């Protein structure tokens, strides 16, 4: 064979660079030139928005109380939650026995008993402790507190004894440090000390009142020169959650009361000599009070100083409620994603695609980039629209939507778009493997949507639901979690209430893992199979 001196035809089209960008361009042209697919993307986005808005419109929240005089219920919209210094919704209900402290100073006290009462389920209105049983809540609290003011939601720092979690130093609702563990008794009391120096409050604990250990300290910015400081007691509502076989849960709850006994109180620094004042800082006054006889103070209180959490006695819900339509939009988007490849198999067009680009892995990659980007944008626009509007509607309808940080909100919106995009790429990969649209769509629905609904709609027991949200691609819905799970707050941290077993991006990574495996298998079979 020799190089011919004769001539042969040569293409006159200008030689373009051989780039992956060309393939992406070609796949994008394919996607945008089938109107049904563009409509499918639009339907997906519309479902995310529409279902979210419908759910918000259908939610009407109100709080009812039985009037003790008439026995008739009186209903009103749920009041806006108290907002703490960090912008989060908080409970700030406790009984506060205080004196003004001006400038620096310290207070120390011995606590020798912490007991409590738990209301019975059939207590009469107005007499909540009728038939109550003795018992202290794990997070009943009593100790020393310094607070900006007695206004609920104001900044504070406190050293306290808890029902079951030993000594804790807490400040500004969300911060918690552990001290000496264990419960107290008359023979094993605890010593607590709280000192102010400028803006800094430091908490100490001790077993003997002589050897002190620092538990923690906090800077409370803008603390006024004169602040109320002193003793406090509080006890959160109890909750009994029953998980039913086959899913669903029901709960009972009611108020509780904590009673703490303090003595050996000592003070240094700028204290006045006025009498101790008892103040109920929001909540039910009927369960609170204090007595002082000689050097002994007995303080009773009910309520909680803690961030609010969803699902318990607190009335609010997480912002992810606005994204309830994600699963519906997901179904539309994965249909488009699967058809994006399976329609080529159905028509034999895959041969044209692979003849135009013999390096098959790149064709798959270009398709994934295009469908991923298109579904990401559809999801991003939809989520960015529905979150603020549905939140406004929910609040207008009387619901409490817990405030979230800007970062969390951006993470929820971007995460939702990313969830939709990665699920769509997964559908594309399955479509490549199975070559059938119906099969691929069914597989993705079974893998993502079904576990999500089973777990979140409390069809399954909580434990099973949580395992589904760890192991299946539905774990990715964790990117929508807006609520924070606080170890120092007793709550019903279930998927139904918006708490996922995995951290947001960790859950998302589970979906990414499944999609990566599916893409890899798709690339291998695409290479090996005759087209």
């Amino acid at each position, binding site marked *: 064979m*020799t190089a011919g001196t004769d001539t042969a*035809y040569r293409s006159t089209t200008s030689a373009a660079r*051989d780039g992956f960008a060309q393939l992406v361009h070609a796949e994008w042209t394919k996607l945008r030139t089938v109107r049904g697919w563009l409509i499918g993307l639009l339907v997906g986005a519309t479902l995310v928005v529409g279902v979210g808005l419908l759910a918000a419109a259908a939610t009407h929240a109100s709080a009812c109380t039985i009037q003790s005089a008439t026995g008739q219920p009186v209903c009103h919209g749920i009041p806006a939650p108290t907002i703490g210094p960090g912008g989060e919704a908080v409970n700030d209900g406790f009984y506060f026995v205080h004196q003004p402290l001006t400038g620096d100073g310290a207070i120390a006290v011995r606590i020798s008993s912490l007991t409590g009462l738990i209301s019975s389920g059939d207590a009469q209105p107005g007499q909540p402790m009728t038939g109550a049983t003795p018992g202290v809540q794990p997070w009943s609290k009593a100790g020393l507190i310094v607070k900006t003011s007695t206004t609920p939601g104001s900044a504070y720092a406190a050293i306290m004894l808890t029902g079951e979690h030993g000594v804790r130093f807490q400040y500004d609702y969300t911060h918690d440090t552990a001290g000496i563990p264990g419960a107290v008794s008359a023979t094993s009391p605890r010593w607590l000390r709280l000192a102010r120096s400028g803006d800094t409050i430091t908490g100490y604990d001790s077993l003997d009142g002589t050897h002190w250990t620092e538990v923690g300290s906090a800077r409370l910015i803008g603390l006024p020169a004169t602040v109320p400081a002193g003793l406090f007691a509080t006890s959160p509502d109890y909750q009994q959650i029953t998980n039913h076989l086959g899913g669903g849960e029901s709960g009972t709850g009611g108020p509780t009361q904590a009673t703490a006994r303090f003595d050996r109180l000592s003070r240094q620094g700028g204290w006045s000599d006025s009498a101790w004042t008892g103040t109920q800082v929001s909540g039910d006054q009927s369960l609170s009070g204090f007595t002082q006889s000689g050097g002994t103070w007995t303080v009773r209180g009910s309520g909680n100083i803690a961030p609010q959490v969803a699902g318990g006695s607190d009335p609010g819900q997480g912002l992810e409620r606005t994204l309830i339509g994600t699963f519906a939009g997901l179904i539309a988007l994965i249909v488009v994603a699967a058809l994006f490849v399976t329609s080529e198999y159905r028509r034999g*067009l895959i041969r044209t695609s692979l003849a*135009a680009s013999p390096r098959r892995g790149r064709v798959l990659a270009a398709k994934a980039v295009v469908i991923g980007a298109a579904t990401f944008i559809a999801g991003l626009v939809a989520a960015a629209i529905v979150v603020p509007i549905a939140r406004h509607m929910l609040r207008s309808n009387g619901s409490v939507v817990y405030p979230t940080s800007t970062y969390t909100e951006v993470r929820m919106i971007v995460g939702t778009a990313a969830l939709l995009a990665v699920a769509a790429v997964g559908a594309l990969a399955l479509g490549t493997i199975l070559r059938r649209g119906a099969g691929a769509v069914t597989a993705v629905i079974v893998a993502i949507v079904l576990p999500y609904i089973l777990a979140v709609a409390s069809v399954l027991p909580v434990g099973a639901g949580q395992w589904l949200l760890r192991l299946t691609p539905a774990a990715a819905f964790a990117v929508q979690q807006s609520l924070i799970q606080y170890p120092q707050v007793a709550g019903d941290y279930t998927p139904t209430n918006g708490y996922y077993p995995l951290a947001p991006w960790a859950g998302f990574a589970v979906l990414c893992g499944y999609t990566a495996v599916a893409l890899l298998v798709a690339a291998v079979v695409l290479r090996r199979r005759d087209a």
Partner: protein
Amino acid sequence: MCGTPIIVTARPAHRRPSCEGRRKWLLGVTTRRSRLPTVGGMDVSIEVNGLRKRFGSIVALDGMSFTVPAGQVTGFVGPNGAGKSTTMRVILGLDAADEGSATIGGRPYASLRHPLRHVGSLLDAAALHPARTGRNHLLWLAHSQGLGAPRVDEVIEQAGLATAARRKSGGYSLGMRQRLGLAAALLGDPPVLMLDEPFNGLDPEGIVWMRGFLRALADQDRAVLVSSHLMSELQDTATHLVAIGRGRVIADTSVADLIAKASDGRVTLHTAARSQAMTVLAHAGATVAASDRDTLTVAGVDAGRVVALLSEAAVPFTEISAHRATLEEAYMELTRDQVEFRAAATAEPAR
């Protein structure tokens, strides 16, 4: 005729395109030259060497080997199931052969970076998304090769699709789909074209157009491989023939040779005095067959001798010509041997 050519190309005179083809090609295409490997002085563009492929227990390709020269339309013929489409898919790297190789200009298809600039192919005219317009179908294909919309509009014009290009391809007739497939094959202006049954679904006018078009492409020194299961479609189009059966090549020959062989020196005679002529010629030792009321096919004596004999005997005749077999007849002649071969082959295992 064509009139004066407007563009002077570097093409040698003997390879001038036909008038019809040239008119179309002058619209937007100029030609450049390059060197391709040659065999026996001819440009070879597709080279298929010993392809074997099984689908389960069925042998689809059984040592398929042939070459497709440039500057000709090569007919790729054989009955349905003979392996035409499978061979084409292997050439395009879509199916993997168990053995053997297929190259385009000496390179395997999979190594081509912008393959449509090397080979344009039409495998299945129905392979379209019905909701996409013909133009958009060409557009994504163009984008995949780094080409733009202007080139798309050129091939739409060349394939005569201008009026239908912006309609959804789901509404196309089979003939329009064939034109769209041809336009797609032309996108990269490739030196090699490979078309599977391009005449399917074309109306008579379309068949004439397609024949002219294919000849014009070959006249530009492109290699054109056209498969068909109907020989009549390739009449006056193909100058080379690769006939296959059961996954292997039966004949690889020029059409002129094949027809000459099938024509075999026979003479066609038109005469009103049929019986007289038959008598005279038979006496002279010729084999005479009546093929029509006033037409005779004469074998055994050449045309000059026929004229002399008839003139001597004063038998009137209106026309005498060398008999030219149709491609179909020639093909039948070819495959008759193959049928016998097959019969012998199938008898063998019984022994």
